């Protein structure tokens, strides 16, 4: 009798813990998108739709030189001949490109000279996002080129960077102020004919960041750009161009959030990196755009082309990405290793939950001798999501002594999600050494139980296991980003266990 009572008490307790757990999980699962708000700024909208006229209007609006207008038009004409690619492991309704606004900018009288003149609403937006624009910028040591719906509003730290000869400005400004650099490098890594979305971007890109690091200069601070998609139904077409001249170094951070919207928004950015002799570019992304709700309604389509070229000898390009947001992520930050002894790196954590889909990976194209590349990809799938790694390692015939190592792991949380690995290895030179490894595992009950019995809640346990799993990639992130990324992971993940 006594014994029975004891068992009952135990059961009771267990029940209670379980319901506590469920409540806690429910709470987090119900958590609304933290950054889901719409800034009330008047939009200077163009008519909807896309035609040559719109392309000309965008170019005229930005007072671009002739060569840019022509380049955009060439891209647009080429785009008309292309069709949307269908090969990735993704499903989504077709995008109606004529139902989008191709240009939206905060309405402004004259350009603000200082932060005081900036629309307070806009500043409040940055405030909520935690962009260190004012005093904090000094403390954080971050120079921000903030982009709200296509036009850079405020750029800080210009003075200090100017002294060193570093150019860090909106690309629209660079087109006007440094046309020679833009004309020389724009489209050299991602030509306007590259792919459907990159071509579209070339035709209609609104703004983005431009960075030039002169020879021998080590950029003293992390350069950072916050992207936000704000106006409803605006396709966001960012264009970023980073050039690291001989023997220079730059670390660039890209952070993305978008307000909650019910309709899917398209984001088709292009990022081009160029590293000359002995230069190094480190590009880090934390992306937590709105992923849609639990039923998979809404969310961002993130179709991005990112590519860097190690043009000079001993150059290095390193991509680090933490992808937790977007309804659909489709991107392959790539490296063309053209210079001898150049190095390409790709570190990625992609987390998908609910109905999110991600098809991401990298391409490492080895052209030069003694080139090396490293790929570390960590996929985490939860809920009903699908997460795919797709990567190419190509060793061309003339690339002697190339070396590649790829590690692509998948972690599954729950039995309704999918994790896929599609590596392509193409080797035409026998001196190459190419290795690919991949494993798939799950957060096991044993691991959770072990942590539970040490008094750690199930949620925290999962968080710990996952951050341990993704640690290799987080280590690559600059400090302030690493913290944010870890926090993002737990927010995106929790609610998926149980």
């Amino acid at each position, binding site marked *: 009798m006594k014994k029975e009572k004891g068992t009952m008490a135990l059961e009771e307790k267990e029940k209670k813990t379980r319901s506590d757990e469920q409540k806690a999980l429910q709470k987090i699962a119900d958590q609304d998108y933290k950054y889901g708000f719409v800034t009330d700024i008047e939009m200077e909208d163009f008519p909807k739709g896309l035609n040559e006229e719109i392309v000309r209007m965008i170019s005229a609006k930005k007072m671009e030189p002739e060569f840019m207008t022509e380049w955009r038009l060439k891209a647009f004409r080429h785009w008309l001949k292309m069709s949307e690619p269908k*090969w990735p*492991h993704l499903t989504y309704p077709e995008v109606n490109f004529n139902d989008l606004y191709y240009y939206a900018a905060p309405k402004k009288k004259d350009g603000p000279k200082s932060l005081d003149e900036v629309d307070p609403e806009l500043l409040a937006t940055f405030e909520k996002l935690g962009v260190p624009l004012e005093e904090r910028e000094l403390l954080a040591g971050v120079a921000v080129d903030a982009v709200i719906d296509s036009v850079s509003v405020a750029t800080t730290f210009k003075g200090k960077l100017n002294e060193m000869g570093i150019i860090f400005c909106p690309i629209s400004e660079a087109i006007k102020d440094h046309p020679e650099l833009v004309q020389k490098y724009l489209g050299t890594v991602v030509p306007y004919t590259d792919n459907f979305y990159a071509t579209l971007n070339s035709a209609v890109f609104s703004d983005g960041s431009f960075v030039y690091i002169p020879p021998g200069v080590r950029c003293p601070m992390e350069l950072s750009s916050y992207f936000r998609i704000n106006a409803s139904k605006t396709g966001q077409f960012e264009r970023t161009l980073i050039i690291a001249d001989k023997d220079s170094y730059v670390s660039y951070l890209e952070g993305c959030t978008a307000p909650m919207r019910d309709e899917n928004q398209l984001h088709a950015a292009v990022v081009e990196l160029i590293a000359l002799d002995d230069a190094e570019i480190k590009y880090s992304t934390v992306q937590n755009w709105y992923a849609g709700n639990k039923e998979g309604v809404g969310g961002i389509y993130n179709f991005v082309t990112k590519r860097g070229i190690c043009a000079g000898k001993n150059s290095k390009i390193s991509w680090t990405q933490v992808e937790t947001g977007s309804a659909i992520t489709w991107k392959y930050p790539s490296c063309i290793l053209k210079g001898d002894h150049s190095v390409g790196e790709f570190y990625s954590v992609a987390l998908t939950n609910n109905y999110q889909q991600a098809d991401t990976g990298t391409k490492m194209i080895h052209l030069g001798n003694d080139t090396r590349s490293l790929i570390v990809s960590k996929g985490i799938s939860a809920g009903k999501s699908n997460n795919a790694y797709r990567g190419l390692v190509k*060793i061309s015939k003339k690339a002697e002594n190339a070396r590649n190592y790829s590690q692509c792991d*998948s972690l*599954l*949380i*729950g*039995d*309704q*999600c*999918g*994790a*896929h*690995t*599609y*590596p*392509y*290895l*193409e*080797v*035409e*030179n*026998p*001196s*190459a*050494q*190419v*290795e*690919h*490894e*991949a*494993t*798939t*595992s*799950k957060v096991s009950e044993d691991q959770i139980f072990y942590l539970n019995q040490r008094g750690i809640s199930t949620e925290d346990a999962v968080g710990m296991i996952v951050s341990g799993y993704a640690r290799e990639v987080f280590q690559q992130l600059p400090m302030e980003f690493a913290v944010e990324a870890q926090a993002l992971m737990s927010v995106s993940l929790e609610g998926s266990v149980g």
Partner: protein
Amino acid sequence: MTETLNIFKDWVQDQSRKGSDFVLSKDFRQRSLSEVRTENFPTRKNEEWRYTPLSSVFDRQPSFAAEAEVNPADVEQLTAAFADAHHLVFIDGHFNRTLSDEISVLARDGIAINLLEDLEPGSQDEVERVIKNAKLTDDNIFRHITQGLARTGLFIELQKNIEITKPLHLLFLGTQSGKTTLSNPINVVHLNPNSRLKIIQQFASVTATKALTIPADYFQIDEGAALEIYKLGLESDETDHLSNTYAQLADAGSLNHHQYLFGSRFTRTNTEINFAGSGSEVVLRGIYLGDKSQHLDIRTYVDHAQPNCMSDQHFRGIMNDHSRGVFNGLVLVREHAQKTNAQQSNKNLLLSRDARVDTKPQLEIHADDVKCAHGATIGELDENALFYLQSRGISKQDAALMLTRAFATEITQEVKLDSLREYIQAEIEARLMEAQNFHV
């Protein structure tokens, strides 16, 4: 290219009109032929054929050869290696009764071997049922040609609880030079519950044979049954070989499928496995050894549709001279296939400046409680190992041969039939010696 393609297609339709000695029912053949009419040859835009251009294959106009006289010595030389097997010999796409063992005798042991051309109408339905049941993911045009124009093949059925210890040696020999001879046998093997069978499937040719070999294999493995298959691709430099294999396993079935592809100008094998029951095991092994400008492409597709199954793939490529190797494997673990254990490994040795390897080991996983891993490597012989052997007085050439042999042995050692293992190892040795142009 479209022109040669159309000529090829017309030829297929033309043959079907003229011929009378086809072995499958008219309805069945018509369906395959209409597929041939509408479907195109896969181009490089097709992900499954990305690294394998076909233009050189259908540039050649095939034809059916009449039954030819063969020198029995040619055949004996090939069968002698497997003295302890039952031999079934096909020459240029025709079954040869004189050179084969008497098949009706085998029925005593509980194994029914029927030529498709000898089938009673009822058993024909059985064969067609098995074929129709096969849903291939790379349902390529060659399989439809094979079926639309099928003139010979085997239907092998093993009774319940029967184990045949003596392997079946199926020899497909090409002897015709000049015209490209079409050989398109269909092999259907059905193992009833708890039966066991071993098959050596050898494709070979007399020197200078010109042929297009497009076999289709269907294996149905019932509860607790076990099939061991060793496929040897040893055809001439002037032969193109494109095969399709489909295996379906019921509960606790087992399949051991080895491929040793050393011959042919152009080889493409497609092996698709379907787990229809739980607790089954599939082991896929293979070596592709290329020389001159050979093209060797192995595709595998393993569909874990049921829980608790194991699949283990290990393929190795050794590429010499201008040869090109392709591995394209996919493991699919479906939603409810929990407790799946799937391994996939592909290792490649590039022995020459001009050789090339493209590999695509893929995993598609929809269940969480699984153990899945894959790996791929591509590289040349280890400098240090070569140096070590040389420092012991072994010539560079011998050292390279030794290391390459060792690389292959990791696969061949798993061949359970002694005579066959020795035969394969000797074949590898001979071919490596012949290549002689090690890039070391």
